[in-house]
């Protein structure tokens, strides 16, 4: 069974541009989470989507946005890129929305975004 897949694996953008990151959850998972991890630091929660709706949002400016599609895949968009947005962006999926007794989350390998 395929795990969580993220694309692209690497992305280089210049300051002020927009970046779009994509995530495909494990088949059957309805919840998708996005995290930002700057080099050497911890995971900062960005967004949580479940059943197509944004359920929760971390402490990030509005230029970080996303959506979840009917097939439960998700996009993270970062507008007006700044140098400090350079980080590993991780996506995770879980059965959270469907099975309230089980909350293991499975992570993808991430997208390394570099803003120059």
């Amino acid at each position, binding site marked *: 069974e395929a795990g969580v897949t993220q694309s692209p694996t690497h992305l280089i953008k210049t300051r002020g541009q927009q970046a779009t990151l994509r995530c495909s959850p494990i088949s059957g998972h309805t919840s998708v989470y996005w995290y930002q991890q700057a080099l050497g630091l*911890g995971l900062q*929660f960005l967004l949580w989507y479940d059943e197509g709706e944004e359920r*929760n949002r971390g402490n990030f400016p509005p230029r970080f946005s996303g959506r979840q599609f009917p097939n439960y895949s998700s996009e993270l968009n970062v507008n007006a890129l700044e140098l400090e947005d350079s980080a590993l962006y*991780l996506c995770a999926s879980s059965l*959270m*929305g469907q099975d*309230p007794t089980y909350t*293991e*989350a499975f992570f993808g390998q991430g997208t390394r975004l570099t803003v120059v």
Partner: protein
Amino acid sequence: LAKTTQPISMDSYEGQEVNITCSHNNIATNDYITWYQQFPSQGPRFIIQGYKTKVTNEVASLFIPADRKSSTLSLPRVSLSDTAVYYCLVGARGGYNKLIFGAGTRLAVHP
């Protein structure tokens, strides 16, 4: 959400047992305790989850005292490949768990 406190770093040697303790004084009645492992430039990987007493799987054991205000992840006979960051998370199963990660414990296993 209950706040968690873990040691920033730990060192061990191959073959030793490693115990990482996490404090969560404000844990709620319906909160579970979950541990993840993360290698550099990879996403975290689920290790173990528990509610009370002891849970054991093929990778680790999780000890939770009766008051549930702390928990201990036990890794038996560590190897160099266990060098990673270990995160303790506390939250309710289902609907509203935001999977908030703290700083984690950076474990270094030496030959």
